[in-house]
């Protein structure tokens, strides 16, 4: 099982640092990273990722520049591009596919695109090898979860983690480290979902300390570390330094 899914904000601390961060993640044995495309109006993000997106935009990390800076990178885990819809719509499917082709991006996680709202756009990207990651929230009923997993189907065990996993949102609200996430509801949610699907699950929102990461792994899911990592990297710490201690189980 993939032990950790880290989230990086493209362009923060800098776009120049990105290849090195990806190489370090690969050296840690991680199968995938989420890479945030900085957006002007990140309605699903808390203060840490809002500030990171703002800094990145100020430094010129436009969607096009971000994707161009990923071109040709091979020393990297699979990249899941985490983004809001509008920048992708403005590029258009054809141009987006052209920009994605030379990059390690293998899937898209579009926060504000429920299935069925842009069917042609989504189908075209999926056919080109960029499926949309299904998102399941605490408010998602199990019936809806079944529907979402069917609409954004598992390409099967032969496909990489990045293209197979479903993202389970651990709590109500937006991204952010928060304090003292109550793991009971998400534990029950993961157990229900594991009975429903054989695809890998990642759990994110509000996770950072080694103990809660371990708890998620013990449920049979991959924990996501986002805001806490972005904050440490912005503070000058190294990716390896932050993630290595979080890869060993804290018992």
């Amino acid at each position, binding site marked *: 099982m993939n032990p950790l899914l880290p989230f990086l904000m493209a362009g923060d601390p800098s776009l120049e640092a990105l290849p090195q961060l990806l190489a370090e993640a690969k050296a840690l044995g991680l199968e995938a990273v989420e890479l945030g495309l900085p957006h002007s109006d990140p309605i699903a993000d808390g203060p840490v990722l809002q500030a990171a997106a703002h800094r990145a935009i100020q430094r010129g990390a436009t969607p096009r520049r971000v994707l161009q800076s990923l071109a040709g990178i091979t020393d990297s885990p699979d990249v899941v591009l985490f983004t809001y819809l509008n920048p992708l719509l403005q590029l258009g499917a054809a141009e987006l596919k052209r920009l994605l082709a030379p990059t390690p991006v293998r899937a898209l996680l579009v926060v504000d695109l429920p299935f069925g709202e842009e069917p042609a756009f989504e189908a075209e990207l999926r056919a080109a090898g960029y499926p949309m990651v299904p*998102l399941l929230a605490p408010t998602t009923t199990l019936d809806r979860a079944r529907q979402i997993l069917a609409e954004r189907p598992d390409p099967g065990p032969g496909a990489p983690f990045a293209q197979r996993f479903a993202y389970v949102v651990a709590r109500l609200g*937006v991204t952010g480290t928060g304090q003292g996430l109550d793991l009971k509801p998400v534990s029950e949610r993961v157990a229900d979902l594991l009975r429903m699907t054989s695809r890998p699950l990642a759990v994110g929102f509000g996770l950072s300390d080694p103990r809660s990461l371990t708890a998620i792994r013990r449920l049979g899911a991959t924990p996501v570390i986002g805001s806490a990592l972005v904050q440490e990297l912005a503070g000058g710490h190294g990716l390896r330094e932050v993630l290595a201690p979080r890869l060993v189980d804290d018992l």
Partner: protein
Amino acid sequence: MTLGFTLPDRFGSQALGGCYAPETLLQPLLDLEAAFRSALDDPAYRAELKGELRHFVGRPTPLTPAPRLAAQLGLKALFLKREDLTHTGAHKINNALAQALLAKRMGKHEIIAETGAGQHGVATAAACARLGLSCTVYMGVTDMARQAPNVARMRLFGAKVEPVEAGQGTLKEAVNEALRAWAARCDRAHYILGSALGPHPFPTLVRTFQTVIGEEARAQILEQAGALPEVVIACAGGGSNGLGLLVPFLGDTLKRIAVEAGGHGPDLGEHAARLDGGRMGVLHGCKTLLLQDDHGHTAETASISAGLDYPALGPELAALILDGQVEVRRASDEEALSGARLLCQAEGILPALESSHALALLPTLAAEGAATVLLGLSGRGDKDLSTYQSRSGL
């Protein structure tokens, strides 16, 4: 497969609108649509709303003839639909009250709202006080400074006003923050969105609660003038007073006009005229005409009026415009100030800066040969006194 909504969620030939919301909000939006439909079918809800609109809001609002201003401009007749005379002083109360009643029906006792000019915030705070609901209003810091009387009014009604520092500190950032707050508290809170914007079902819900404006106005003008006007005109921020006034006239042969904020210049960032330079995009849960840069980032906007200072036009109004049912015009900051002066001096009515954008078009309409005009006076100008004073050298 569809998301499971039952009301139409797309508008016009370009299928604007939709529900581009984060997954956490999908079920709350589905629940809201179901509650809205069941409320509309429930005679008890309709009776309660009607009673509150009459006895608390003060509906029907008058349709006031403005003969001196009409004569001065060379119009045969001018009628003002007086939403400025509602309780709290703008059309926003029609929607805020109806949604607060809906929230109560849904068993949600916490209310979240965003506000730009502060009129929606004040209306929501008043409705919450009246119905015993708790209320938190998100407002950009720029708007808090320029609409300070409304901040005080919200606080007097017991609402918590949360300042939003991000970006330009205007309506767009307030909506961002309100959506985030709702995602965190959607299990117990209802979000009262203040314009015909956002993810389905909000645009439809807000428009439905605002068409009382046009329905009353149409009956009133037929009664007072014996005929329909040649032009019906309203200002457009998100589009709620515009749709509210214009939709009931869609079947009639007359000119329907929405006026956007021309700000202080024609370049991106200097205005909020979405028809000039806006492109199709997605913001705050709906697809519509949006002022944005080449990267799909939302553009900055500018307007003397906080209520029109928003980068997206509500999807239904945008669709009516693109499909030729409604005409769009713009008025600059300066023109809006002149529009306000006209009404103050000829009729003794102080309009909100938003409504003044519609007033600003009257000389043009007269020059184009219009004879009878019905204008939506969406709000009163008390909140804007400091701007009027500083910009008119009073």
